[in-house]
């Protein structure tokens, strides 16, 4: 808001320096994670600590893949996060289209019910869902990891708010041209909703990649573990092998940093749209 101001004041510089110091504190754990991941196992216990090892061990990054099936875990995370994201985009956008562009009896009530579900903490449904998945024989399966997340109230709400802003004349014009609802949904509304779809996609992908409790309780075979669960079990087995644990942490974080770097604007717009609508 001070774009009009020509010269930065002393206060501006002070704030800049404080923000810089804060940024270093925020980055510190990441730097230490990378630093530790490249050290020989014994060096991490040395005092005083070193930032850069004299004997760097990039081989730690190969060691983790031979110690546990970490490649498989990363693959599982990719499969689960991608499937959940695609399913949510389809299911939520269909529901949002009905709420935003179609008239039907019970629309407001059903929308309120979906919204009310936002108040239900996921831990409330955890136990019944676990029992359901177990009875279906879906422990250690992809469908058990994916299907419970295929719909989200948040996603429906986000997309519906966005679709509401599409001018009704556009939809009316398509209808006069003889388009049916499937054509309007796929050919008019979805293309115009790309920013909101992008925000939901990134948001969902990151949330799924980092999801922990559900995959923790619904997988037992190492070959079905996702990255977060593999990392936690690595901690259980090698709790003093800090270079190995930090290697795993780096590998779990890097893909999200890339996703975030590619779409940080839509990610943040997803969060803030939700907040303005929720008020």
């Amino acid at each position, binding site marked *: *808001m*001070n*774009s009009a101001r020509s010269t930065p004041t002393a206060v*501006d510089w002070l704030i*800049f320096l404080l*923000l810089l110091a804060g*940024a270093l504190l*925020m980055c510190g*754990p*990441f730097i*230490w994670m990378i630093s530790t991941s490249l050290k020989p196992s014994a060096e991490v*216990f040395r005092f005083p*600590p070193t930032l850069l090892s004299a004997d760097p061990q990039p081989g730690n990054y190969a060691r983790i893949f031979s110690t546990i099936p970490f490649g498989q875990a990363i693959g599982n995370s990719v499969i689960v996060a991608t499937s959940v994201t695609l399913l949510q985009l389809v299911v*939520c956008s*269909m*529901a949002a*289209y*009905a709420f935003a562009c*179609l*008239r*039907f*009896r019970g*629309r407001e009530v*059903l929308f309120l019910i979906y919204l009310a*579900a936002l108040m239900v*903490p*996921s*831990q*409330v*449904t955890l*136990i*019944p*869902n*676990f*029992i359901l998945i*177990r009875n279906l024989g879906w422990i250690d399966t992809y469908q058990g990891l994916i*299907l419970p997340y*295929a*719909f989200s109230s948040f996603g*429906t709400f986000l997309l519906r708010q966005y679709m509401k802003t599409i001018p009704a004349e556009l939809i009316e014009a398509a209808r006069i041209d003889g388009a049916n*609802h499937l054509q309007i949904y796929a050919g008019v509304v979805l293309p115009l909703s790309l920013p909101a779809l992008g925000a939901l996609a990134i948001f969902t992908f990151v949330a799924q990649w*980092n999801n*922990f*409790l559900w995959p923790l*309780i619904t997988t037992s075979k190492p070959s079905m573990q996702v*990255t*977060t669960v593999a990392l936690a079990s690595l*901690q259980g087995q090698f709790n003093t092998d800090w270079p190995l*644990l*930090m290697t795993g*942490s780096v590998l779990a*974080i890097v893909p*999200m940093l890339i996703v*975030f770097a590619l779409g940080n604007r839509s990610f943040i717009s997803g*969060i*803030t749209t939700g*907040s*303005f609508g*929720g*008020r």
Partner: protein
Amino acid sequence: MSVSGKPSLGSQARREEGVAWLFLAPSLVLFAVFTGLPVISAFFISFTHWDLFNPPRLALFDNYIALWNDPIFRQVLGNTGYYVALAVPLQMLLGLLCALGLNRGVPGQGVFRVIYFLPVVTSTVAAGLVWAWLFNSNFGLINMGLSLLGASELPKWLVSSRWAMPAVIAVSVWQGLGYAMVLFLAGLQNIRRDVYEAAAIDGATGLTRLWYITLPLLSPMTFFVLIISIIGSFQVFELVYVMTKAGPSNATNTLVFFIYQNGFMFYQMGIASAAAMVLFLIVLALTLVQYRLQNRWVHYE
């Protein structure tokens, strides 16, 4: 109304209705199976004894009475309250300060925003691991640093019943402040510029402007951040799981960890569901409080 010429209107509306339910069908099925019915089942399971290996037995209020009399559950509620009471204000205060700083248009603000936000997109399991390493009482960077600075009595952090919870809280503040910051930034950018211009004409600058204009106009967002932060903080689990496993001797056991522990380590689905209902009630009450108080406390433009 449709006296003549448009007999198809009714059937068209009916057709639109049918189409709407087709579009809703996938979400309805998934919602019913994985949210609606489970909420109802959780309620009923909380009135049973069920270990998953034998059929459930009716317990009526036994689980709730057991929770009420369980000193560990009381400790868990106390711990969770302690966590929420410290983590939420700290996250919000630091998030607000960052947002106010960034909103001045300092150089590199885009980079700052990304850096402060990075921990939010970081897997909590990975973040908990590196912080467990930083807080390691013998070889962690924090204690090594403290002893280099000349400290003689070093806290045992995660293995100390006094310091474990503050350590977990510190990590959650590190991880959560970027989220509050982004929301506050959006709120700040939503304040109309002419309000500031009017204030400038009246001679308001610096702190006066912050106190009398920015903060009151930001209050709807502040209230929203407060409520979602409290609700989110009541659900803390992953940091506890990775950093302390609820120890030492339950010093960092929290509500969701208690649910996990009883459900999936002790196979007491009834007790776990009853504890989940307590969590549900807390979140529900907070949401209702939000609706009630919003109008009284919050300034809209």
